[in-house]
């Protein structure tokens, strides 16, 4: 039997309207359907659509999913069904050589994977997953790189389970290999499985799905008292409770699954919360992000060919997207299931890269506690964990500075406005929160920090008197007292942006009470200068001013103007301040923030929330000037 046993009739898109290059594309092929039987295959495909889109989370992901029906006529009808495994002895010539009775088991129905993948690639070049429907009413199916199933009732469940493996790398959650009475499957081997829905780690604080576990849920939720067999007791908790249930990944003990039941454990039941999230995380990044209007974005370049961008969805989800010179933009994903406080303009996700293979991120959660998470090249994302018990001001910004690679200094405002700090050191871990020199920030003010030297910190904020205040810390002398920066009246929600073009110099940018874009500087030799307005600029109410220094004698500024257009200007020590200009026609949300980064000196990447609420980006390059804005998502 070869592929000469029939011919390809053609391909029809039967569901979806997403762009083919940014969609989850399912290619369905029929085997053992003769030319006159194509209507049966068409009906089977319709039945699959009904079952598939009736299975959460696919019910909410349809806009990103396309389904294609590839009609293939086979010479013969049905599939091989050997007598030796209880079959009929049928042996038709079919296009994909499907056969029951593999490995001595009749219902193990397999096709020729190579043929199926090659046909799918020819008919639907951008296919994500391939399914083969076999023209037989005998129950059967199999997984692997091609999901195969028959027309028997309930066999579509095989395809949906198998997609869990093929498309998302989900593990099997069943706690046995051959049904439970097998030997050699009592204890899971040591080591953490790579899949997202099984674990050998029973510690709540480091559990990979800890974001989904309620604090009132016991961990482990269910422990197997007899590892020689499967724990067959009913669940001690209500259906849908996420916890830690022993018995998963083919072992009776030592491996855990997130819920008592899941489609990766048993056909006919829903996917568990963790698997639903994984499926969501695969398909959702194919779109763009509608962001919280005024929550600041942040961006980090761990190395020049890589960017990590952090934002918040309009629903508060902590989101990230990254760009790599070799693979482009990766698409938005929810960072460890986090949801940030919506107080004020919303607590942003702030980030720092202590070294190129590591990120530390911070935000204030919906319970107004300060949370952190990290990403490491050797382990991926951690869960969010709280930093002490500080009650932060709702929506407060958490500022972070890494004075050196084994140390973090973190700053934010407490519920009563007190300016608080906490630090982490690789040798000692996290310290406790303390108030910085008795400082209290005005309502809506943020604390800005910069390290000009590894042994020196400068802080800036707006006080309750709406004046700008500063404070510094030095390794030798500790924290100094707060002192005012002249008498300029700040916009109450003003943020101070600070840049050190070189270690003995600071440039500050902010907004005055009338919205004027103001600057001052400090130099070790001359001390503080007076405030001045930058090129007559006035910012949209709420919008901060962003500054970057590409060279020690050059500054670039960005803000949103009173007409909500995105503006930039620059300063060069030979020519002074330029006039403000609109960046590539960009219009932002009123009161939003523009973030910029220069990962290489002749290049600037800029990010903003557009007037439609979607996150956009553009860039400037020394050779080509400004590019147009594009919706940030996947490329």
């Amino acid at each position, binding site marked *: 039997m070869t592929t000469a046993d029939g011919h390809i009739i053609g391909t029809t898109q039967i569901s979806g309207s997403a762009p083919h*290059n940014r969609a989850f594309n399912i290619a369905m092929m029929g085997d053992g359907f003769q030319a006159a039987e194509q209507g049966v295959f068409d009906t089977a495909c319709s039945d699959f659509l009904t079952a598939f889109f009736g299975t959460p989370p696919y019910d909410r992901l349809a806009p990103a999913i396309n389904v294609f029906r590839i009609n293939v006529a086979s010479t013969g009808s049905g599939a091989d069904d050997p007598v030796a495994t209880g079959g009929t002895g049928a042996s038709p010539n079919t296009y994909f050589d499907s056969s029951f009775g593999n490995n001595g088991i009749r219902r193990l129905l397999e096709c020729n994977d190579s043929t199926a993948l090659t046909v799918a690639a020819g008919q639907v070049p951008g296919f994500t997953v391939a399914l083969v429907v076999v023209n037989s009413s005998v129950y059967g199916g199999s997984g692997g*790189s091609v999901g195969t199933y028959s027309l028997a009732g309930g066999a579509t469940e095989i395809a949906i389970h198998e997609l869990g493996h093929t498309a998302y790398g989900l593990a099997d959650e069943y706690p046995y*290999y051959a049904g439970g009475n097998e030997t050699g499957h009592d204890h899971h081997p040591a080591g953490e499985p790579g899949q997202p829905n099984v674990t050998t780690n029973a510690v709540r604080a*480091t559990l990979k799905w800890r974001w989904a576990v309620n604090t009132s849920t016991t961990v482990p939720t269910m422990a197997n008292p007899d590892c020689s067999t499967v724990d067959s007791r009913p669940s001690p908790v209500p259906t849908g409770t996420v916890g830690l249930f022993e018995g998963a990944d083919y072992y009776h003990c030592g491996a855990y699954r997130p819920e008592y039941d899941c489609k990766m454990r048993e056909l006919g039941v829903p996917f568990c919360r963790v698997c639903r999230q994984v499926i969501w995380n695969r398909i959702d990044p194919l779109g763009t992000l509608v962001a919280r209007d005024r929550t600041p974005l942040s961006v980090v370049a761990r190395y020049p060919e890589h960017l990590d961008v952090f934002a918040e969805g309009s629903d508060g989800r902590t989101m990230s997207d990254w760009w790599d010179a070799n693979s482009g933009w990766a698409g938005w994903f929810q960072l460890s299931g986090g949801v940030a406080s919506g107080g004020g303009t919303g607590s942003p996700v702030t980030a720092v890269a202590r070294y190129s293979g590591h990120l530390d991120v911070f935000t204030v959660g919906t319970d107004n506690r300060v949370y952190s998470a990290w990403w490491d090249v*050797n382990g991926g994302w951690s869960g969010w*964990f709280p930093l002490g018990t500080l009650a932060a001001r709702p929506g407060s910004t958490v500022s972070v500075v890494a004075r050196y690679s084994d140390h973090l200094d973190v700053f934010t405002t407490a519920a009563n406005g007190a300016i608080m700090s906490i630090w982490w050191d690789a040798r000692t871990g996290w310290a406790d929160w303390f108030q910085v020199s008795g400082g209290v920030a005005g309502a809506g003010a943020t604390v800005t920090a910069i390290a000009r030297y590894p042994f020196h910190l400068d802080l800036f904020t707006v006080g309750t008197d709406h004046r700008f205040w500063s404070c510094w810390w030095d390794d030798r002398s500790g924290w100094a007292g707060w002192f005012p920066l002249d008498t300029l009246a700040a916009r109450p929600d003003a943020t101070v942006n600070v840049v050190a073009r070189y270690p003995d110099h600071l440039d500050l940018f902010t907004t005055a009470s009338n919205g004027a874009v103001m600057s001052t500087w400090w130099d070790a030799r001359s001390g503080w200068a007076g405030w001045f307005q930058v090129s007559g600029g006035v910012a949209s109410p709420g919008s901060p001013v962003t500054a970057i220094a590409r060279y020690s004698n050059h500054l670039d500024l960005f803000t949103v103007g009173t007409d909500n257009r995105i503006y930039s200007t620059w300063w060069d020590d030979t020519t002074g301040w330029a006039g403000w200009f609109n960046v590539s026609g960009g219009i932002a949300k009123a009161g939003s923030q523009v973030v910029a980064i220069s990962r290489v000196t002749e290049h600037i990447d800029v990010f903003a929330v557009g007037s439609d609420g979607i996150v956009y980006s553009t860039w400037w390059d020394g050779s080509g000037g400004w590019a*147009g804005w594009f919706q940030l998502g996947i490329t």
Partner: protein
Amino acid sequence: MDTTSGPVPVRSMRFVFEYESGNISLILQQPVDVAVSGFDLHPDLRPGDYVEVRGPDGGTLSRVPVRSGMAASAEVFPEHAGDPITRVDKAEVRGAFTVVAPAPLSASHVAVVRVGRPAAAPRPGGVPTPAHEEPWATDLATFALDAPAGGQQP
């Protein structure tokens, strides 16, 4: 917004591999207009099989996981609801798998790579110190890429 131009898409390639008794062959390499998401572009190394696209110097340009690869067992599904799904060892380990990976024009090779799990489990405690046990990686097979069509393009 004036959205006249966007980022230049990165070229992607589809690869189809066949495997039989430990031998892997590349049976299809085809440029394809597909955006590969961060879900597949693991920047971190977790245990499993991967396909790596490499440059002339052997450096990794992109890496995507093989999610349903060379399994030595097959899944057997129950006909009756509530009965267990089981697995059986395959009589012969052979089949095919496919991935789509970003492949810049500088790409010259593609490799199938196996990453093993580090010996230790994650450390207990909420201290944000990553485990430093490095996973190990082994090349299972390496193939040269065909020169891209119109390879003279900038």
